[in-house]
């Protein structure tokens, strides 16, 4: 008896391994932990740890098997997915094909209000043919589909997943103190093997500089974009930390309203593009945190080609072009005109991004020197988006993120019928190629189609892409073997 008691005492006193916890800083709290309703970067990054999709995008943004082990497309409008067996949700219930059907069906339900709904619109029907097989029927061939099927699969019976997430991912929610932190714990039964860390704590620090300071003070182990250019410079020079730089799947661009004079003339848009000193803006305002863009194609994309290039900075060339188009300062007021038409327009952006505000202010001064009169309109994001959606603007500076497939950054933006073609760009040739890009499944053929679109767009200048947004991450020596992901996903902590 005494022996057993001693044994129990010994067991109780045995040194226990302290849990491995990594604290990750973030700028906003997650708005929802339901993969169908997420809309901010924190939600994206946390949901990625809690759930799995049918596919998963690797670091090159290529869809690879996740909950689906394989798939085939017997005809371009029908896709068959074979599910991994013995996958369980965090509550122990088994994943079935019905859960996949439920997840995708709620995504199309207009009342559900899924932000990414438009990406799934070509899907007409989803059916579960047996417990481990799902068939997706399409209205028309849709090549980017696989890239969008990384959306997390949710159990069909669960409710209020936004606050009480239930996925199949490597981590499960332990505690969520809204506005403060999200604590995740390892899912030891994960189908991909138990995670390396015991817990991941996502800590919300809204201010960029304060977050960098908390990292320097040792309160955080990992911080990542968005970061202030000044903090990136300081942390990069600090030998205590390891930094990662990736080209993110995101761009910052000027959108021209091609239906408004004088910007309805492609030559005028080209001349204005030639007056934008990309190098100075990116070095002085962005302090080198973002890379100089060449076209609407991302360098990390399989469709990229260095041969496709938008007009380069060339002030003399721009002046000659404007003279040639008949825009000259005839009345000596410092502003060029052609007849009654002044070379003047409004340049807008949203006030939340300080770098964008500084960029438009800088450009206003630059363009004035060349006889272009620019008025600024800087508002908060909601007001900005109302005018943008109504095409009530001349030129605006904004960004695209999560461009996981070339179609996502081109189709809706440049197709005459595209839902995001706010600049009212019309080009039948572009429409035709974009349609072909969706219905062609061969990747190299698609790549050459998107290069053709990008060449036309570079010449017509409905967009002028200022930069490829950089993704930056810094971590302390406590974080071992971290592999940065250009979208800021944290699976690199697990794998």
């Amino acid at each position, binding site marked *: 008896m005494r022996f057993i008691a001693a044994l129990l005492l010994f067991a109780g006193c045995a040194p226990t391994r302290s849990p491995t916890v990594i604290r990750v800083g973030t700028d906003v709290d997650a708005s*929802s932990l339901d993969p169908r309703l997420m809309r901010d970067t924190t939600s994206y990054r946390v949901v990625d740890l809690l759930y799995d999709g049918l596919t998963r995008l690797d670091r090159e943004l290529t869809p690879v098997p996740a909950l689906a082990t394989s798939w085939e497309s017997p005809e371009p409008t029908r896709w068959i997915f074979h599910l991994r067996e013995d996958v369980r949700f965090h509550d122990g219930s088994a994943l079935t094909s019905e859960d996949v059907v439920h997840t995708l069906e709620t995504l199309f339900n207009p009342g559900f209000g899924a932000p990414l709904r438009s990406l799934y619109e070509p899907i007409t029907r989803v059916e579960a043919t047996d417990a481990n097989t799902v068939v997706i029927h399409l209205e028309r061939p849709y090549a980017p589909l696989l890239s969008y099927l990384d959306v997390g699969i949710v159990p069909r019976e669960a409710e209020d997943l936004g606050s009480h997430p239930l996925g199949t991912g490597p981590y499960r929610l332990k505690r969520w103190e809204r506005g403060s932190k999200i604590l995740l714990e390892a899912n030891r039964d994960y189908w991909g093997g138990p995670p390396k860390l015991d817990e991941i704590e996502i800590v919300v620090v809204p*201010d960029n500089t304060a977050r960098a300071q908390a990292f320097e003070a040792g309160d955080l182990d990992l911080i990542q974009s968005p970061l202030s250019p000044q903090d990136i410079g300081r942390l990069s020079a600090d030998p205590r930390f390891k930094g990662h730089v990736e080209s993110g799947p995101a761009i910052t661009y000027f959108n021209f309203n091609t239906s408004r004079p004088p910007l309805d003339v492609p030559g005028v848009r080209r001349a204005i593009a030639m007056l934008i000193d990309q190098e100075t803006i990116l070095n002085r305002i962005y302090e080198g945190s973002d890379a100089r863009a060449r076209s609407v194609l991302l360098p990390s994309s399989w469709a990229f080609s260095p041969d496709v290039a938008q007009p380069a900075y060339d002030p003399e060339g721009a002046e000659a072009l404007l003279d040639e188009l008949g825009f000259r300062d005839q009345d000596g007021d410092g502003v060029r005109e052609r007849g009654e038409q002044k070379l003047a327009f409004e340049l807008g952006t949203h006030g939340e991004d300080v770098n964008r505000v500084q960029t438009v202010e800088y450009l206003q001064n630059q363009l004035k020197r060349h006889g272009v009169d620019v008025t600024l309109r800087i508002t908060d994001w909601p007001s900005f988006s109302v005018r943008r959606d109504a095409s009530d603007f001349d030129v605006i500076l904004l960004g695209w993120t999560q461009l996981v497939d070339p179609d996502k950054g081109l189709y809706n933006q440049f197709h005459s019928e595209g839902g995001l073609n706010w600049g009212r760009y019309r080009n039948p040739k572009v429409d035709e190629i974009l349609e072909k890009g969706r219905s062609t499944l061969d990747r190299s053929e698609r790549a050459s189609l998107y290069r053709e679109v990008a060449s036309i767009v570079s010449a017509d200048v409905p967009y002028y892409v200022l930069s490829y947004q950089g993704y930056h991450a810094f971590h302390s020596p406590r974080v071992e073997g971290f592999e940065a992901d250009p979208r800021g996903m944290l699976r690199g902590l697990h794998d």
Partner: protein
Amino acid sequence: MLRYIARRLFVFVITLLGVAVVVSALLRLVPGDPAVVFLGENATPENVAELRHALGLDLPWPVQLARYLKGIPTGNLGVSLFQRAPVSELIAERLPATLELALAALLFGVVFGGALGVVSALKRGSLADLGVMVFAQLGVSMPVFWLGILLSALFAVHWGLFPAVGRGSLGHLVLPALTLGLGLASIASRLVRASLLDTLHEVYVRGARARGLPDARVVAHALRNALLPVVSVLGVRFGSLLGGSVLTESVFGWPGLGTLAVNAISQRDFPLVQGIVLIFATIFLALHLAVDLVYGVLDPRIRIEAGGGPSAD
């Protein structure tokens, strides 16, 4: 006294009702559509129209308002458009943090500022007095945001004495409370100094001194009266501590109502903004009521008249 309180409570309720109506109306006048913000960059106009309908945003404003007002007495403040959770729940999660920070800042402001004010008044014209006045000037003119970053750089990054971010232990509270409370401490020090100097010249104080009362007792008597204007100002300032903590919260990752409010406004999350404003208005009005009542306790000369507000005779 009871009739007075009842009357004040009635005005209280009417004012809150007014606040609810005005905020709701103002929100609809501000450009920006929550459905557009929620759906983000990939939404088509059809998606937006459908979501507006699903959320009831396409209903006429009076209908939306009536629904909202109907819920208030039962504590139903609606559902956040973005977080899809009850507004009352979201506020209840954040309110303790906000109150904790505001109270700590108030305590620091009153005790520290008050002590400086007393020293300054008693040592009028001395180097200490000058020092306090310089501190007061700096304290009110230093931007909270900058002060927060500075304190964090010194006490968290450089010396590692306190955590830089988060909430939980007493240590977490120190830097945010100092940051938020410093402005108040400055104001309190100046108020106490001015008020105490006035009181020390009153006839009854000089009388007390003439009767040979010890200095400490004289000052204690004088201080009680000198605190009157301070209490009224601090009561109002507490309201602004609640609302003005946004920057402090942002710098120290403090999970309070301030950042929730700012995010709700930038997202045009109408129900959440309305709920937060209503809660702030309730606290603010309650404080005003409390200040008026405390006045009577501190100064027996003040009699609350049944028909009107407090008056000094």
